[in-house]
């Protein structure tokens, strides 16, 4: 086999291995991004799966532990509500009425066990009021 042939074979094998590794990585880490209403409406479908759920922290529901390592609150959508409990470093600006994204797993009892809270506030990047954009105050090491 000439040099070009060897290079083509090597590149093909490498591409195959990398594609397989990427598939393994994707299948072990993929998660749905849902709104509260979607999540509650299809709770059976998403129970036990890793999710990112977006909603607003309901007024009067936020309860943060003294050491700021645990929190419980209710995430509300336009029609439905989702109870959330969280463990880990909480973002500095977590507050009631704030748009947040909670990453975690939906338990069979219907509550979301969060591992990370990402806040979306009216950042100076998006002064016109952020429906979708805006900065995130990241909470745990897997994102920033």
């Amino acid at each position, binding site marked *: 086999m000439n040099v070009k042939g060897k290079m083509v074979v090597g590149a093909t094998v*490498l591409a195959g291995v990398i594609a397989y590794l990427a598939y393994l990585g994707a299948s072990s880490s993929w*998660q749905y991004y849902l709104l509260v209403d979607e999540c509650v409406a299809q709770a059976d479908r998403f129970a036990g799966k890793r999710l990112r759920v977006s909603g607003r922290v309901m007024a009067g529901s936020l309860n943060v532990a003294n050491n700021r390592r645990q929190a419980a609150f209710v995430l509300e959508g336009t029609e439905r509500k989702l109870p959330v409990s969280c463990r880990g470093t909480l973002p500095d600006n977590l507050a009631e009425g704030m748009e947040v994204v909670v990453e975690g797993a939906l338990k069979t009892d219907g509550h979301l066990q969060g591992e990370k809270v990402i806040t979306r506030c009216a950042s100076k990047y998006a002064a016109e009021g952020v429906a979708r954009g805006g900065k995130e105050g990241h909470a745990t090491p897997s994102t920033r």
Partner: protein
Amino acid sequence: MQGYGQTFLLVVLICSSYAAYVHLVCRPERGRLLHRVATLCGVIAFLGLSATVAILATALITRDFTLDYVARYSSRLLPWHYSLSALWVGQAGSLLLWAWISSALILLFRFVSPQRGRLNDTAFGVQLACLCFLTAIMIFAADPLKPSLAAPREGLGLSPLLQHPSMLIHPPVIFCAYAMWTIPFSLAVAALLEGQFEGTWTQLARPWALFAWTILLAGLLLGAHWAYQELGWGGYWGWDPVENGSLLPWLTGTAFLHCLMAWRYRNCLKKTALGLAILTFGLCNFATFLTRSGIFSSVHAFSESPIGWMFLGLMVVLLLGGTTLLFRHRLALQPEKATTTLWARETMVLGATLLLLVLTLIVLIGTLVGPVSNWLTGHTVLIAAPFYNNVLIPTGLLLLGSTALVPLLRWGQPPTSVQRRCLWGSAGVGVMGVLGAWLLGAQHWISLLVAGCAGVATATLLASLVLDGRRQHPDRLWQGMISALRTGRRHYAGYLAHMGFVALVIGITGSALGTRRQEVTMKEGESLSWAGRVIHYVHLDQFEQPDKLVVEAVLEISHPGQTSAVLRPGRHFHLLQNEWTTEVDTHSTWLGDFYTVLNAGLGNGEIALTLVDNPLMRWIWFGGFLMGLGALLALWPTRVQQVRIQSSGTTTSRESIAVLSRHKELQQQVGSR
């Protein structure tokens, strides 16, 4: 003043579009005066943008809230330097900065470029067309000098997260890099439009590409450093879509630089190099699309706006146009010599290019999977770090391996018998590196492999220097090595950048595999031992600053055999934004960082802390520094270039001729290595 600014922008649009038209369409031999006027228009465009920047900067420093932009991003409570930094914090301001830097670089290219001719004229025209695009966006969609509807007494101020020294320079550095990639892109388009693919093209594109690559690297590192210091989770890279956006052009830019060398020394990979120049600039526009389209919510993102889609449109046009032009010239861009061995430098360059393109593709897929899945299935699916890491680890290790071998390989030929012996010796050093790392406590196979590759890389570099030194002065090795470093400075600068990459990989591996975290609560005066250190909590310090209240925990950290350090992790309450931020404090050594975060004060002098032990973090910043230093050393003109500049194509002195001929000899020697 805003009226003047808007007029200036209009003048810039007219001048840049006229100058672009003349340089792209009119032949200079038919209208020299037209070309001179068009060049003058380029100068006027730069002056107009400079004046606009000056107006906005003055308004920010004087807090002129009659301007909408100033009211949104500044306040009287902000220190003046952060108020000025608001120039590049908002969307319209950052576009203005990008356009201004572009205009300055375009003029620099026009007047500094050593050669004049159709290629340069066309490249100048393409650059002005890009400037025209940016100015049009500012005029029609993102006016930085829009007046406020009703001037407020106080502005909204700057997000507390952005009030960090790294943020003062990170955005302008990134925009400077994006602007600088316009030059290699324009040269590639000009070469394809004019059908000029001589070896001199690489000499024209190389310095700009090297500089753009270095600046983008600096921007990425500054961003990572900001994330590490400001966001308080102990990491520096989170595969955020927008930071991915900046990484993509750096990956393709790295591949482009290596293909330029293969083109120069072996006349191969020309299509790939031209395609990569266009792709890199396209990806700079794609990164801008990511921040401005609103398709992602991110720590960097601007609000949803049509601007992002304009940049995406430009990228699509560039890719389609570039592909068509490359296809048209495919025969002229065929390599002149076929590769005859796998163990040659061009083969390594080709392999590294493929690996970098695979990484680019993977990062692109990971970034776009959310919006694409939503579009296809109605559900948004996201993928996290394991997807990237699964690919990054093998490709990174292969890149590291090829980097380690390169100093002892030659262009177009297999290594000589001496080089082969040195390669086997270097492999032995690599085995010793693995054993050394194992004895020092590294157990993970990735750490051991990285240590082995680092050993091989160091040994091959030294062996290459010794061989070159012997070739130059067989009797006096040291003198020969110094002489080799002088004459082969560009090559050794490249190897220095490679050693920087090795250091970067060591840092990434150490911090990724060895990180430890601990959540603790401590009472005043209490001490605890963790990660080989004794942490003593002295007291909680509280004081006021004009714009914030500051709470800091004073910690004394002592490490066996080292002097103790005092760390002050804190929390700041920003009065204007009514918002808390966490301010970490770090004790950094070559062995690792001790990273402390104050989570909360619990009353009665008790505090909640997060402690993070990040091994080898300093090697990441050091590696990045070495890579940048290597690139800058490679940029420094050689003696022969200096002679050319001095002689300016006129009468060449005898000394110059002697230097030129000596340089040619040395180049032939290096090329044959």
